[in-house]
């Protein structure tokens, strides 16, 4: 990640020269059709199953709008070419693109997802480094499975300022998170997306729509649901298991902590009593000892993972909810059709 940060810092200086720091945060993202197609293509070519593909987004900020005008994929690398230099590749890519007069400003990255499972530590870390370097950068999450069902699923996320703070401080202890007052709901914020094509392309589309016969196939109306739901539930269940484990861990921690507190308390009291006795006998009080040495507080479990899991669970739930509500609608429709016939 560090390397990537380096590269981004280069570009950010470049950007700074153009626009300086953002006066107003990005409120909307405008994506070129080209980018969407490129991402879909990338996934179809390289990512299969639960494999994840990633790439770089290029574009620029206009007012409160982030325009993403182009992208290029990270190459899939295998074990053999471990010494492959990603940074070098990116720089090369961007330089080449600049040569053909394409926007070359780094504004974020994209990633495909498998049944909506993308809220992870890795994503958090890279998004943080991006956002740390380039404030406006976002991550585009492309869900190929939903897309295959008939509706394009593309979402842009970025970290909330609060989470940025925490990540900067790297304080993931319960106390730290508590102080930051952050919940899983406030970790990521979604930015609305608009897909924009040039007029020429729109014209072409109109033209094509008339000619094509493919459009008869309506994936959208597929009634089968159990497969997708099952997968989702399976994943959800795994997350829930993780969550349970984390909670148990945390539980143990807090119990240990309170036990130790009690011991500490007792110890102090005993000390006090002894001192009082000594005083009454006219002896000097016992020397103060370092209590923290005597009672080493147990290592608090990092809570960020739990937060992420919660976020992920939330995500799954949204997915399932969305999916089932759609399906329900479809079922009613089908029923109505049945009745009509």
């Amino acid at each position: 990640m560090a390397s990537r940060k380096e590269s981004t810092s280069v570009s950010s200086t470049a950007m700074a020269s153009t626009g300086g720091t953002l006066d107003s945060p990005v409120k909307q993202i405008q994506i070129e059709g080209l980018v969407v197609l490129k991402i879909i293509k990338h996934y179809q070519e390289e990512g299969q199953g639960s494999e994840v593909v990633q790439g770089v987004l290029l574009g620029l900020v206009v007012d409160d709008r982030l325009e993403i005008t182009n992208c290029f994929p990270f190459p899939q690398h295998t074990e053999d070419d471990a010494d492959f230099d990603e940074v070098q590749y990116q720089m090369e890519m961007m330089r080449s693109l600049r040569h053909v007069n394409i926007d070359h400003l780094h504004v974020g990255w994209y990633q495909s997802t498998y049944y909506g499972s993308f809220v992870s530590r890795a994503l958090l870390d890279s998004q943080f480094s991006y956002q740390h370097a380039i404030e406006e950068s976002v991550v585009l999450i492309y869900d190929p499975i939903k897309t295959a069902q008939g509706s394009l699923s593309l979402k842009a996320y970025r970290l909330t300022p609060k989470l940025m703070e925490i990540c900067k401080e790297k304080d993931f202890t319960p106390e730290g998170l508590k102080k930051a007052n952050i919940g899983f709901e406030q970790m990521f914020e979604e930015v609305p997306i608009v897909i924009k094509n040039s007029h020429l392309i729109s014209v072409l589309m109109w033209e094509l729509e008339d000619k094509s016969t493919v459009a008869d196939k309506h994936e959208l109306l597929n009634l089968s649901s159990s497969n997708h739901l099952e997968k989702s539930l399976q994943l959800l269940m795994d997350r829930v298991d993780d969550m349970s484990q984390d909670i148990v861990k945390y539980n143990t921690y807090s119990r240990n902590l309170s036990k130790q507190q009690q011991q500490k308390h007792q110890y102090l009291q005993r000390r006090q009593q002894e001192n009082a006795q000594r005083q009454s006998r006219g002896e000097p009080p016992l020397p103060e000892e370092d209590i923290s040495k005597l009672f080493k507080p147990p290592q608090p479990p990092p809570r960020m993972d739990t937060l992420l899991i919660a976020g992920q669970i939330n995500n799954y739930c949204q997915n399932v909810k969305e999916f089932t509500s759609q399906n329900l609608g479809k079922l009613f429709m089908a029923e109505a059709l049945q009745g009509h016939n």
Partner: protein
Amino acid sequence: MSRFFATGSDSESEESSSADEITPKAPGATFKQSLLLSDDEEDTKRVVRSAKDKRFEELTNLIKTIRNAMKIRDMSKCLEEFEQLCRAFLKSKNIVDKEGIPPFYIRLLADLEDYLNQLWEDKEGKKKMNKNNAKALSTLRQKIRKYNRDFESEIAAYKENPQESADEEEEEKEPEDSGSSSDSEGEVSSKSFLKKKPEAPSEATKFLKTAKGSGDESSSSDEDDDDDDEDWGSDQSGSSGETSDKEEGKTSSMSVLFLKKAQDTEKLGVRKEERKKKLKQKERIEEEAEEEGGEESGGGWEKVKGGVPLVKEKPKMFAKGTEINTAVVVKKLNEILQARGKKGTDRAAQIELFHALAAIAAENNLGQGILVKIKFNIIASLYDYNPNLAAFMKPDMWKKCLDCIDELLDILFEHNNIFIGENIAEDSENLAVSDQPFRVRGCILTLVERMDEEFTKIMQNTDPHSQEYVDNLKDEGRVCGIVDRLLTYLENKGSTEEICRVYLRRIMHTYYKFDYKAHRRSLGLQGETKSEQDQEESEGEDSAVIMDRLCKFIYAKDRTDRIRTCAILCHIYHHALHSRWYQARDLMLMSHLQDNIQHADPPVQILYNRTMVQLGICAFRQGMIKDAHNALLDIQSSGRAKELLGQGLLMRNMQERNAEQEKIEKRRQVPFHMHINLELLECVYLVSAMLLEIPYMAAHEFDARRRMISKQFHHQLRVGERQPLLGPPESMREHVVAASKAMKMGDWRTCHSFIINEKMNSKVWDLFPEAQRVREMLVRKIQEESLRTYLFTYSSVYDSISMATLSEMFELEMPTVHSIISKMIINEELMASLDQPTQTVVMHRTEPTSLQNMALQLAEKLGNLVENNERVFDLKQGVYGGYFNRDQKGGYQQKQSYQRDQKSYQQKQSGYQRGGYRNQNQGNY
């Protein structure tokens, strides 16, 4: 040659010592005298003898001195001389190596040790001894002990055959003596020599005196005796005073030497006498004095001479001419009894003594009372024979014991006027023949109980696979006979408590035996041509009737809980053994033993375990598979069936328990002939588990919360699965596992062939008394359960299935099939309905889809999660604010919503249950 010489010199030394003995009146002078004597000898013989002889002479002289010191009880002197002797012996080592250890040396060592031991045990004498002497005594004793260790074998050999040396002596002596004294005299002296009493010098002197009395001085006066004693005393003190200057710690003894000899001769005869003598020293001294006074010649000698035990024994018991009456015998009896339990008492000899006493009593017609009393004591001492609890009786002892008890019972039966009891005080006994009935203290019941325990012990300690075991087991009949006789006896005379106890004994010998006669009779076979003996046998009472009668008596009369508990358990066991399942079960349930058996002592618990196991096996025979499984579950699930049934110790525990515990546990073991076959037990358990578990598994294949009915069975299945290559089953377990696999597929024929075949028959099924019936039951069960399994497993494949087909497939009658399926439908195990006109089962597809299953699982997991979360929250409340920074109110609300969630979840669950997917309890199976 050398040997001759050696003995020669030896005899010489003896000679001189005998000379000493003959002149004991001037003990002060003896020492010098003997020295002089030896000097003379040396002078005369020096010319002839070689270096070896010189050495030996030196030794001999020292020995002589020691013997003298022993005689006068001068311990310090003894010690001094002994040390010198040792040194001298070392010096002559090379000669000794060449020639072997001279026998006289060994004799001295043995004698000295015995003498010292005797002195040591004579507490009185020790007290009287002055300090130096006492000190020297202990030192010397230790020294000699250590020293003698090197000569153990020689000493043992000598002790075995002391006569030899004595004879040699005599031989030597006779010619020498013959010149100076008459034959008779020589004899006497030699005898006296042999006779010399070890105990006390006074005694020794007495003998010597008598010897003299017969020879030189016809009458020795008591005064002399006294004088002697005094002299010795003064001498002792004097010598000790002398030595004390130089060597404080040393002691010496003298007069001891002869003792050895006396002991040896006695050893040939009866060793116990010695002990008795010690006990009754005074008495005897008087006696002897009397005798001496009365009969100076032959008569008196007879007694002394008595190398033969019997001759000696009798006079020992009763002085000759004493009128033997009850009182005297009782007195004697008590005397013998006093030695009982004391250290060093020869128990075997004691028994002999009792026998002799009994014989005397019988001879003199002292009546049955005394006889009974003696018998009691004989049996008691027989039991006492083994000092520790773990050891068991030797066969001959055991036989003797049985005989004795039998005889005792004979007497008791013959003579109605004998009252025996523990509570009859010793002094209120009436043993003499009189008009009053005899009253004897003693408890025959205790004796018989002890005998029974001994019998168990013998059986426990015999290798169960040896012929010896069979031989021992044959005694069981006698034991039972005795118990039976006692039972009849006590029924007339005993108290209720005693009757209860003896009944329990009887029950204990009955409950585990299968009553083949009754069994045959119940089958109606007894009319067939049986030998007369058989018929006679079958005329006896059924063991069931006996058990019933005895147990009921105990239930009614017993006041100790333990006897009743045991009786109940035995009764149940007996019922179960004879397939009276309902009686057995009801009795078990009524007794409420299951609740509090863990408070009972281990033997009762073992009995309880045995009973439960027998109950389970009985249930199995009756086809109550579930009951069988439940009864066996506890024993089998622990994997320690062997230990729990008291049929062997597990090696695993060896390290955990120490030797003491192990011994205790060993004592608890059930004798082999009462064992329950463990393989049969395990097989019954596994087959029951199979019959229960396989259909259950089939029914709940997708149930996440499925519970195992039998862990052990699952374990076996897993072991079977782990096998990389499955050969044909060999062991019983493998058979059951293979059968289970077949049953899982609903293939009852294969299952049947695995469970019931040649191998399994010989291993297991033939062990049942009604093997054929059990097998039939088993086949039927297998068919039924296979049918159920088949329906569970394959119902999803069928839309409908005809009952005729099913009945054909499983070779069951239509009604049976019908009833099984109906039951399954009613229990909501099978989603189907019966179509009456076509006789088909129509399946309803209602299993949850995998998605539904998944959702259920998720719900469960979420429940867990919520629970965990709640726990965290509970901890948080109060001390720290919530991690999510909720305020109190928010947390509370949150909690409520959790609860709501949970409730709805539960509702969901219960709704589901109503839908009938959830497994119903197996109860109504």
